[in-house]
């Protein structure tokens, strides 16, 4: 086992542990903080692959912007574990369902990974530039430009929908109030 593999397994273990902590810590703010550690570990995995650009973007977008938003909301709401309903027992059917789903996903990955890895030697041709900003941009903006644009349009639509929902929110509240009046 060479040094790279050792680092990979340490990072993998850290990823799993922090992922578990994200899911099982009682306080939401703790989960958010472990999520940052998780993202930094993921980014370290990208660095291990030589993809510095993706690693930096991972930190910039996820740890630097999205989790900030999470913590922002958590701080605004300031919920305690009782309000989150974490004290209620989880029914065994959902435990079986969740672990079953995760098992199926792992099985799919186990079957599919060798097939996916067959494509990798093609990437090894440009090993010197692999993962650099230049080669990344070439693949991203030439080969996958349509998927990228579609994803962008999807996100834009999501933003518009959220805007619409927020815009209609006051009406909904007043409707609810009038409903309450009717009931009373």
């Amino acid at each position, binding site marked *: 086992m060479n040094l790279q593999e050792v680092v990979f397994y340490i990072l993998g273990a850290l990823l799993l542990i922090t992922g578990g902590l994200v899911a099982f810590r009682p306080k939401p703010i703790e989960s958010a903080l472990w999520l*940052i550690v998780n993202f930094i570990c993921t980014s370290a995995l990208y660095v291990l692959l030589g993809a510095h650009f993706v690693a930096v973007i991972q930190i910039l977008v996820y740890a630097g912007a999205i989790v900030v938003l999470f913590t922002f909301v958590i701080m605004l709401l300031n919920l305690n574990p009782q309000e989150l309903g974490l004290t209620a027992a989880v029914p065994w059917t959902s435990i079986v369902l969740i672990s079953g789903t995760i098992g199926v996903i792992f099985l799919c990955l186990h079957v599919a990974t060798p097939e996916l890895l067959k494509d990798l030697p093609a990437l090894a041709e440009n090993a010197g530039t692999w993962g650099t900003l230049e080669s990344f941009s070439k693949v991203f903006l030439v080969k996958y430009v349509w998927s990228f644009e579609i994803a962008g349009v999807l996100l834009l639509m999501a933003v518009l929908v959220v805007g619409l929902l927020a815009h209609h929110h006051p009406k909904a509240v007043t409707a609810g109030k009038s409903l309450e009046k009717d009931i009373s």
Partner: protein
Amino acid sequence: MFEVLLPWLFLLGKILLFFGIVFGGVAPVMIWVERKVSALIQDRVGPNRVGPFGLLQSLADGIKLVLKEPLEPEGVVKPYYYLAPILAVIPAALSFAIIPFGPATTLGGLFETPQRLQISNLNAGVLFLLAVSSLSVYGVALAGWSSNNKFSVMGALRASAQMISYELAAGLAVVTVILLSGTVDLVSMVEAQSSMWNIVPGFFAFLVFLPAIFAETNRLPFDLAESEAELVVGYHTEYSGIKFGLFFLAEYAIMTSISAVCVLMFFGGWELWPGFSWNDLYAALNLGWTTEGTTNILGTIIPSVWFVTKVCAFLFLFVWVRWTLPRFRYDQLMSIGWKRLLPLAILNITITAALMALV
């Protein structure tokens, strides 16, 4: 043996030089400058008791902060309360990893090939700096949240909203500079500016970048996060002693790194003057050495000092603005960020890209 150790010693030397200068030199001196300039602007004398011109005042303050009793206010959320100052300093320290402070040099023939005066040469270049500075919001947010004080929470909320908003504008301004230079690497960016500094073609980008970095560093006129009149001092109200000192140190360290990036991106880094490089000057003076330092180590030191001078000018601008401009109102701050700077930045990228494609 020496040949094997040399690159490592060089790396260690660069790291020690940077941290020594920034945390041991720039931060204390900047606090003194801040107080002296504020005194000058407000027609006062300023610190003048400790040492000549009050220069040792920062040292005295530092000793005081370290020796102070570590107070722990009631009701703080303990681990996060202690974690927050550390999380504030880490991004500030990390941001120096990619800042070059001089041209590539062989250190007067010590190395075979010219070595970069940069701790780490990352492929992502200036993007790393954006990523790291976006992490600095956690120190502020956690400090406010864990302090069990409504003023702290208000300050933290304001700071995080402000940092997210202005990061976008700053990032888009950086995109313009990347377009102009054709690279994200800061050393190549400086080399690309040898004939014309980016401030001329990228003037509007600078116009967006400057307010954005003032907001990123939480300094006046954007210091809503710690506005004394409303929030005591905002997110670090409940901090004292060295924990407060760390926040203070982080602020000045980030200020220094951002000033350095500004000089590197817009003001030609260590280049002497637009269209007139150090090599031209050496040739004109018949000195027989070049900036690469192949023949003389002075050829490396002089541009580095010139770079530091430019950074100092920027640091002075930070102080000057702080003591001159009043604070914005919170809604003004948000509308400037989202309705003025962001459209200007996007428009600027579009026009720059179109012009570069045409010309």
